């Protein structure tokens, strides 16, 4: 628990004070939100992880997004279940699509036919842009207001001096 909290803090600090642009941080955050909002053991999360590594976005923001949105995912599961059920069962216009996917190669392995998986993925798609925009805006505001003051603190210097921070620097664009 303590380690998770420490990682969260380091991730937050490194992201906010990295050289990444707000857009990179916002998109990284939005991609990481997928890992938290949807059930983790699914194929699409491998793709999200690959995108975080390969795209020129903030990996730290992605990890931060994962950590922040995981409890949100747990809390919103009943809503995701309803959304998934509405899409899978109660929308006749989509049934031919689902039926086609059911008989296609690889698509069934994405577990799209589970209400929680589909509902949370659909919710993430809808929230991707707002999370990215809000995340970028929040970083800009932070850097304009608290950023400089925080960088001067002893605590910040201690965090950034840690070896873990050096490893994070590998992913700073």
């Amino acid at each position, binding site marked *: 628990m303590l380690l998770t909290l420490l990682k969260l803090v380091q991730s937050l600090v490194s992201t906010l004070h990295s050289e990444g*642009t707000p857009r990179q941080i916002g998109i990284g955050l939005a991609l990481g939100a997928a890992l938290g909002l949807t*059930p983790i*053991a699914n194929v699409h999360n491998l793709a999200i*992880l*690959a995108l975080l*590594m*390969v*795209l*020129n976005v903030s*990996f730290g923001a992605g990890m931060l997004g994962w950590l922040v949105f995981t409890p949100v*995912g*747990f809390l919103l*599961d*009943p809503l*995701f*279940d309803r959304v*998934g*059920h509405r899409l*899978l*069962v109660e929308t006749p216009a989509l*049934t031919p699509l*689902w*039926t086609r996917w*059911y*008989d*296609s*190669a*690889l698509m*069934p*392995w994405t*577990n799209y*036919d*589970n*209400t*929680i*998986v589909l*509902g949370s993925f659909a919710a993430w798609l809808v929230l991707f842009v707002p999370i990215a925009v809000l995340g970028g805006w929040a970083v800009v505001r932070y850097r304009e207001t608290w950023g400089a003051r925080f960088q001067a603190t002893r605590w910040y210097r201690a965090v950034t001096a840690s070896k873990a921070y050096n490893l994070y620097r*590998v*992913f700073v*664009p």
Partner: protein
Amino acid sequence: MRPIRWSGLIPLALLLGLLAVGWTVFGDRIVQSVVAEAASDALGTEVEISGLRLSLADSKVTISRLQIADPRDPMRNLVDAGPLLVDLEAEPLLERKIVISRLAVRGGRNGTRRSRAARVPRNGYLQRTLADVDRFRDQFRVPLLQLVPLDTIRDVLLDPMQLVTVQRAIALHHRADSAKDATAEKWRALALRTTYDTARALVEKYRGVRPVSLGIAGTRTAVRDVRATLAEVEAAKGRVERLHRTVRAGIDSVEDAVRDLDSARRADYAFARGLMKLPTFEGPELGNALFGDVAIDRVAQALYYARIAERYVPPGLMPRETPGPERLRRSGATVAFPIAPSRFPQLHLARGDVEFEVPDAAGRTARYVAVVTDATSEPALVGRPMVVRASRVERGGAVGSVRLHAVMDHRGRVPRDSLVLTAQGIALPRLPLPGLPLAAMPGAGTSGLTVRRVGDALTARWVLRSGALDWAVDTVARFAVASDGADTRHGQARRFVERLVVRVLTGVEDLSLDARVTGTLAAPTVQVNSNLDDAVASSLRGVIGEEVRKAELRLRAKVDALVEERTAPLRAQVADARLDAERRVAEARAELERRRQELEAQLRALGGQVLALPGAATAPAMP
């Protein structure tokens, strides 16, 4: 700014490499754990898999050992088999569907002991199926073999109020009392005494009076008074007659109700006879009582396995929702969509060859082979019914044969299942007889079980023949019977009947049994006939029939006595009421007639003398 971070490819490659290594090292264990957990959840009992090896290149899976725990006994296995070899088709796997072209199972056994207790959820699928089958079994009304002795009459009829006749007699008694009070009130209302007194007074007033002394006016008044009184007397007579008719009708009604008590008495005879639990000695009842339970067990077992298979071979083709996988987060629901006709079913076992061993009734382990074809979750898609064939394999010549042929046709909405199981020349299982310290040991014989189900309708037949019938006495049950009420006349009489039945049965050396189950799954009935029924029935009838007849006569006498105790006073009450009514009416009629005659005589006297008076032309006319 470059959109692609090429340096990120390195950790990505490392991650994929790590996953590949992890799969290579742990993949088999992961699949084994996932399959075991999924199977445990599906069946509702612990499924243990050991030694699973997955070869994706060959699309093969081998399993060293498969254990499915018995949900009723956590230390026992329902199925213990191994090794298993599974040939999968590769293309359906891409669609997350499992099509097994061939399954080979060796070394299957039933009832092996486990090394540790299984984890069995309380309301798993197998347990729910067992509970369903128990409920099916409980629907049958199998009569108990009644060998209760005949001296229980006094224990039965302690409370006369149980008899309908007595209850009705008491109600009639109250009704008669009410009628009597009402009649007395009506008699008083007639006020006949007043009429009598008025008439007598008038007669006395004008007795010996001459019209000359009254004068014409006085005589007219006298005549008018006499006529008025006469009319009153006539009116009173009319009231008496009407009241008589009413009272008579009421008494007739009560008398009719008393006569109707006889029909209630017949119902009381039947009620008391039912309480007595007289011995069963009619053929069909005996057959059901002796073999009903074992016959139902045979059918119930077939139904049990059919219900298990039905969960995975459901009828029809339709979208289905099932609970999602268990995880930290909510499971949600997983929706299965209709599969296109040209595509693969979700699960299909094209052919399975199973070898298994089962201990027979003689305690020897017999080997069987079974072939299962087209077991699938989408029978309508596959287009062929699921077929199971099994037979017994003996080394060194055939000693006996057991054959099974079962078909589950769930291609349409209405399931059609059938099962034919025949066994010849093998040791048939022991058949305990309920209510008796005996078990039938058919020995080597033939047995045939046929079960057919179309939708909810069920027909089944179990035939058993044996020419080497032997008997085993259940010493525990015999001791319990012998010691129960040993010193009482009741206990002695019951043991006499039981000894007779046991003597008759143990003298029979062959067994021919025919049990039929018909009806629906919700309302089944069983009918069992056997050669033992007639043997026992005729001997019971010979010995006990006379005793039963005497017991029935005593029973009727007892019921008659209890009923007579209530109905005799009632009949007397009704007779008294009738006599009293007739007496009153006769008295009233006589009195009123006397008064009428006196008044008419008085009128005549007044009228005759008036004619002798001067001016008699104006005298009133004679009535």
